[in-house]
Structure formats: structure tokens, C-alpha cells
């Protein structure tokens, strides 16, 4: 993404913004500061990045404002779910400090989707302060969802094609609806993005797909499996990024940074630890997440005493969907193919206990 010039970040396109209903609101109502000519005085107390609240966006957007405020996209509560499961309450303050320094810049305020680029890429007004109903995939969505989702979707991983939906000119909003992003309906109850029914789900659009021995289909592999066997991505995803050992710390000047020890492309089928009526499949793709027992040691000792309570190979829905993949070539592409499954041989010895519910027993590979 090309960095914006300093002036570009704060430039208001008078023509475009003048057509926007938000232009009728006084600038200082949302941004604070004072509407005066003096530069210093004008920006005293100014809020550059406006946060959703009942007094700001929620003042008019009464249907969306409250739910967006509590949405996963804004709260990043999914991180809390994951971290707290590996920790204990007395460590929460240290973990929250860590998140504030390293994670929270991806809090998605209303503006981060509808007005400006996220802070993680330097901020800046995308369309001269014009409010866009749909965010820009390149300048907003993938600004935060970059290293995995963007690379997979765009086909930026070496040797891996782009997602078929990208090639069909579909942007993020075609599947990830406004209601879901705003935490409305079922999305408002989620504690993580894989909580509840898939949203989006493949069958939301591909509702003509039938699976199982009684399925009305000419696709042999669809009739050979049913929804209790495997998630769609087991056949239709391909290699994706797996990361190893992320550590966070700060410089002497208090500048936060992270280091990921390693990352590699791979595709692994594991057991679904999130199995439910909404996600009944036994097998799912799993991705290695770079958490380590000492990932946050800069902020305290032994902050993850329950590290093994949660796997390090996690249920994944890679954004690199293909109709034809190595898995779909023949039945033998998967069956009796140990290399495709997450087994004890694949997992680092130190992580086997954490992943015991994910590992596929070598004797049980279908």
C-alpha cells in the first residue's frame, strides 16, 4: 500500500464531502478542538481518530452504533477469549497492557472502515473525508487483515493462486456483510469469530450443493462425504501461512515491536475442536498460531500458565479457495496420505499436549 502524503491524510475533498450528509455536522462535534484560525488552538484537545460512542456516530446511527461498539471488530474480544483461556485472572492486567501496546491499533472504529485508513498503516482520509458505505478492500480491510488473509486472497503467496472469489472480482463485503461487521444479530453474541454458525458460510451462496450418499450431485467427492465429515475448506483450500513463536517487547524508548521467529506455507487437516451443531464437521484445516509460553515475557513472568489449555494449531478458514486442489485430484490424495494430516510427527514435541484434541492419530487417518 502506497503511503499517503502528510497533507493527503487530512485533506477534505470539498466537492465530494459537500455532498455527504455528514458535512452538515460541525467538525468540532466529532473531533473536538476549536474552529479557529490559530493552528495550535484549533487542534488543542482534538480527536483525530473518532471512536464510536452514543455521543458521536451512535447519536444518529442508533441501530448500528450500540452493536458496533460491542462487536468483535471493535472490541477485539476474540483476542481476550484466546489469551484468557491460556492464563489466569491475576495476569489479565499485564495482558491488557500488552494488547494496548501491540494489538489494539487494529480496533476497528467506524472511521477505520468508512472514512480513513487504519492506524496500523498510518491512517489518513481515504476519500477526502467522504463517508463510504462499503470499505475499500485494499486500503481498509486488508490494511489490518494483511499478512494472512490479504496474501492468500490476492495470491501473493509464492506458488499459490489467488482465491476464486477474488478472481470473480468479489471484495470482502460480498461475504462479510455489514450486519456481521456491526455485530448485529447472532454476530453480537460471539466470543470469537468461529463462535456460532459460519458467517459467512459457503452454503449461504452455494446453496445448491448437496452432500452425502443421497445427494443429488454428479460430484463423486460430494456424495462420498457429508457435512459431518469435513469442512468445505478441507478440499477447497490450499497451502497457507503458518507462523511460529511471536514475541513482543518495547525498545528503551518505549516503542513496541514484535518478532515472529519463523513462518512457512503448509496445509494440514486436523480435528475440529469447535465441533457443534453449527459446525458439525470432524475434519477442518488447521493453522499454526505463533503463540509461545513466553510470547509476552516482556510484560511479566509466566503470563500463560495454562498454555496447554488451548491448541496452537487452530481451526482455520483460509482465504485461498480453489475448485480444484491437490486434495480433489483423487480419493488417495487425502486418504492414507499421512502428510496431509496434523499428526504427532508434524507437531513440535513441546506443543503436543496443547494440541492433543487436534491431532489426527496415524492409525485413524481415513
Amino acid at each position, binding site marked *: 500500500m502506497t503511503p499517503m*502524503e*502528510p*497533507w493527503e*491524510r*487530512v*485533506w*477534505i*475533498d*470539498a*466537492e465530494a464531502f*459537500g*455532498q455527504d*450528509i455528514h*458535512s*452538515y*455536522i*460541525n*467538525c*468540532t*462535534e466529532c473531533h473536538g*478542538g476549536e*474552529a*479557529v*484560525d490559530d*493552528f495550535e488552538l*484549533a487542534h488543542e484537545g482534538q480527536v483525530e481518530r473518532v471512536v464510536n460512542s452514543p455521543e458521536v456516530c451512535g*447519536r*444518529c*446511527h*442508533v*441501530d*448500528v452504533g450500540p452493536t458496533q461498539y460491542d462487536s468483535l471488530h471493535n472490541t477485539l474480544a476474540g483476542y481476550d477469549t484466546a489469551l484468557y483461556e491460556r492464563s489466569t485472572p491475576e495476569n489479565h492486567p499485564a495482558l491488557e497492557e500488552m494488547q494496548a501496546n501491540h494489538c489494539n491499533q487494529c480496533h476497528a472504529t467506524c472511521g477505520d472502515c468508512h472514512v480513513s485508513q487504519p492506524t*496500523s498503516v498510518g491512517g489518513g482520509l481515504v476519500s477526502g*473525508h467522504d463517508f463510504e458505505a462499503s470499505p475499500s478492500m485494499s486500503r481498509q480491510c486488508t490494511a489490518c487483515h*494483511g*499478512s*494472512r488473509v490479504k496474501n492468500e486472497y490476492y495470491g501473493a503467496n509464492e506458488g499459490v493462486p489467488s482465491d476464486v472469489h477474488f478472481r470473480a472480482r468479489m471484495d470482502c463485503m460480498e461475504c462479510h*456483510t455489514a*450486519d456481521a461487521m456491526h455485530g*448485529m*444479530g447472532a454476530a453480537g453474541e460471539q466470543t470469537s469469530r468461529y463462535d456460532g454458525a459460519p458467517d459467512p458460510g459457503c452454503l449461504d451462496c452455494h446453496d445448491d450443493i448437496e452432500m452425502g450418499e443421497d445427494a443429488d450431485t454428479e460430484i463423486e467427492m460430494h456424495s462420498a462425504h457429508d457435512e459431518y465429515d469435513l469442512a468445505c475448506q478441507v478440499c477447497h483450500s490450499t497451502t497457507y*501461512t503458518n*507462523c511460529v513463536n*511471536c514475541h513482543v517487547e518495547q*525498545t528503551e*524508548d518505549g*516503542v513496541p*515491536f*514484535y*518478532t*515472529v*521467529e*519463523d*513462518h512457512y506455507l503448509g496445509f494440514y487437516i486436523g480435528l475440529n475442536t469447535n465441533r457443534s451443531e453449527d459446525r458439525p464437521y470432524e475434519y477442518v484445516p488447521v493453522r499454526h498460531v*505463533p503463540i509461545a509460553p513466553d510470547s509476552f515475557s516482556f510484560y511479566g513472568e509466566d503470563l500463560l500458565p495454562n498454555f496447554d489449555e488451548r491448541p496452537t494449531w487452530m481451526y482455520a478458514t483460509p482465504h485461498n479457495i480453489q475448485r480444484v486442489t491437490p486434495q480433489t485430484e483423487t480419493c488417495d490424495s487425502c486418504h492414507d496420505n499421512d502428510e496431509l494430516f496434523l499428526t504427532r510427527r508434524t507437531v513440535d514435541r513441546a506443543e503436543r499436549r496443547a494440541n492433543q484434541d487436534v491431532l489426527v492419530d496415524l492409525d485413524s487417518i481415513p
Partner: protein
Amino acid sequence: MLRPRLISALVAGGALLMAAGIAMLSSSVGGVSVSLASPRLEIEPFEDFACLECHADQQRLSELAVEEEAPEALSSGPG
């Protein structure tokens, strides 16, 4: 100097904002009608022309907007 078209649009904004607020009250979400609380439609006349005088002026912004010295990027690996 703000363009006259923008100024007139801003000055006439109150009634339009009121109408938009009423429209929002009757919006439905995801195909399901949602019971909405009454929004606070206390519309003040637009007065913050000083903000726009500067922020809509590309040349003036080019002179005033200064690139902050970014700290050395020390992070490595996929974020």
C-alpha cells in the same frame, strides 16, 4: 476560500439532516425491523468554516502538514 457551493450546502444543512434522521428511524436491518430509540436530533447550524478553510486547501495543508518522524520499524515477520 471555501467554494460558494460548499458554503451554501452547509448552511442549508439543518433541514436535510433532520430528514435523514427521520429516514434512519424507519430503517430496517438485515431484513428485520429493529425497534429504534429516538435519536438526539439537536441540529446546530454549521459554523466550523475555519476548519474547512484550511483542510480543503491542498496548498495550505502541504505547507502545514509535517511528516512525523516515524520510529525505526523493528518488527519482523508476518503481523
